């Protein structure tokens, strides 16, 4: 089994995700970028698990999927709250606290 192709795909997804988190201003797009990183993790885990014939990678991936769902649930709630209070989901406008 070829491992490299999976790892390269995961590394590419990871880089796109990090780029997205750092540059996007729209709240929902930032959350999507975080999801990209988490999916890169899942690809890594499943590929390593299959490569080593070891079930722990798959188990880990299932946990990551489940927890990511909870995390994004909280994140979307926060974006919604922000939209209600300011009528905008542009993260760069959130700058009341400084110093």
């Amino acid at each position, binding site marked *: 089994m070829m491992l490299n192709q999976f790892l390269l795909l995961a590394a590419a997804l990871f880089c796109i*995700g990090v780029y997205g988190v750092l540059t996007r201003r729209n709240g929902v797009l930032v959350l999507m970028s975080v999801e990209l*990183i988490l999916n890169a993790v899942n690809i890594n885990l499943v*590929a390593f698990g299959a490569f080593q014939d070891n079930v722990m990678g798959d188990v880990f991936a299932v946990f990551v999927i489940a927890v990511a769902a909870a995390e994004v649930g909280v994140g979307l709630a926060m974006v919604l709250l922000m939209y209600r209070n300011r009528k905008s989901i542009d*993260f760069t406008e959130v700058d009341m606290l400084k110093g």
Partner: protein
Amino acid sequence: MSAAVLAQVVPFERPPIDWHAVAPELILLGFGALLTLIDAVYLERGRKFTSALAGIGLLAALVPVVTLAIDGNDRYMFNDAYVVDNFALVMKAMFLLSGYVVVLLSTNYISEGDYWENEYYGMLISSVLGMIVMASARDLITIFVALELLSIPAYLMATWRKRDLKSNEAGLKYYLMGVFASAVMLYGMSLLYGVTGTTILADMGEVLNTGESTSVVSLAIVFVIAGFAFKVSAVPFHTWAPDTYEGAPTPVTAFLAVASKAAGFVALVQLVFVGFWGRGDVYEPLMWVLAAASMTVGNLVALRQTNMVRMMAYSGIASAGYIMAPLAVAGVSGDVADEALRAVVTYLVIYAAMNLGVFAVILGIARKTKSAEISSYAGLFQYAPGLTVVMTVFLMALAGIPPFGGWWAKFVVFRALVNADTTMGYSLAVIAAVNSVIALYYYLSVLRTMWADEAPDGDVTPIRIPASLVGALGLTALATMAFGVYPKLVDTVADVSLLVGAGG
């Protein structure tokens, strides 16, 4: 076809569970579920007793921790993924007691502020549950799940004032930095799993120690440590801390500053001592840089703060540096590692007492002044001499002046650094010493404002402090004084021999 497949399936056998060892977790889980149920059934009528119930739950979970400590045996479950040893028990007791003090701090604040009360205590209990799971987690998956279990309720609690833009911002910044850090950490964990083929930390330690040093291992260790450096708010991953601390409700700030930070350190300690011990060449320089940067940046920026909570945030960043410093020499030898571990545990226990105390005083003063600006503390001694005296105890302890608790914490850190007898240890000790002097300045200037200045507008009506806050102040002041006058006490508590499964 399907019958043939089914015939091969081994019937599921439940792994043996040591019910005594997981009793604290189960009790907290039970109380958390009960609080949620009360909310669903009694609605607003449940508000009267939820805080008492949460406090009882946290204290009840302490009972099995004590019986386990008396029993004294190390307990292992699930292929060593879940270990209850002395270190785990000490940290569990600390998390439960800090949680209890946070309940005391929250009782009046949350019920008077028109907040959602029932859910608040449910969230608090879930977060503490995550922390006590973290103390026993010796496996990447368990560490990850514990981290998220303690973080996700904390994100929500930081945003608890839904209509307040500052609270929204506090939660949002905490959440964004948190998920980003945990995603990067997970990528590191996936690489570690790929290299070692296991998620159990003890097995991973063996493989990493004997295996060749590849750059992928170094990258994975850096990613994982960076993820937890966010949790403990070490520079350069600290940017969320001051904003979140200022915007979040003050009891939640106390919780984040003490319990959440300690949980990050518990995970770091387990990873370093059980998982990465063979790779000191990677984590030691990293810890050195994080510790030196945190101490210096934290203290220097704290100097020019005018808000007490923000100042405490930067002081917390500096403390994260002190706690991290012994980890920079942990790989020198077995004895040094032992001493470094004790230094971290000692500092965490003493830090919890004095920092929770400071936040209790901040809450008490804010009941009258509605402000955390340091200038509003002027003349406090004229109308609240009791609060002024306990604040003096806590700030002197944080500055490290005997006989108040903090000096012993700093002393054990210095001892660990110097006994390592390496360039890294000595240089870090010098940086820590210089920083202790800088810290003295800003703590003393707050005290000067409180003792010497005149009260603004000559308003000297006394502050009415509710009983729960008095209880929290009494507990933390007593602990701070006891640890300082009689350090043997905390030595007995922190007498944790090397973690189960640790090598080196």
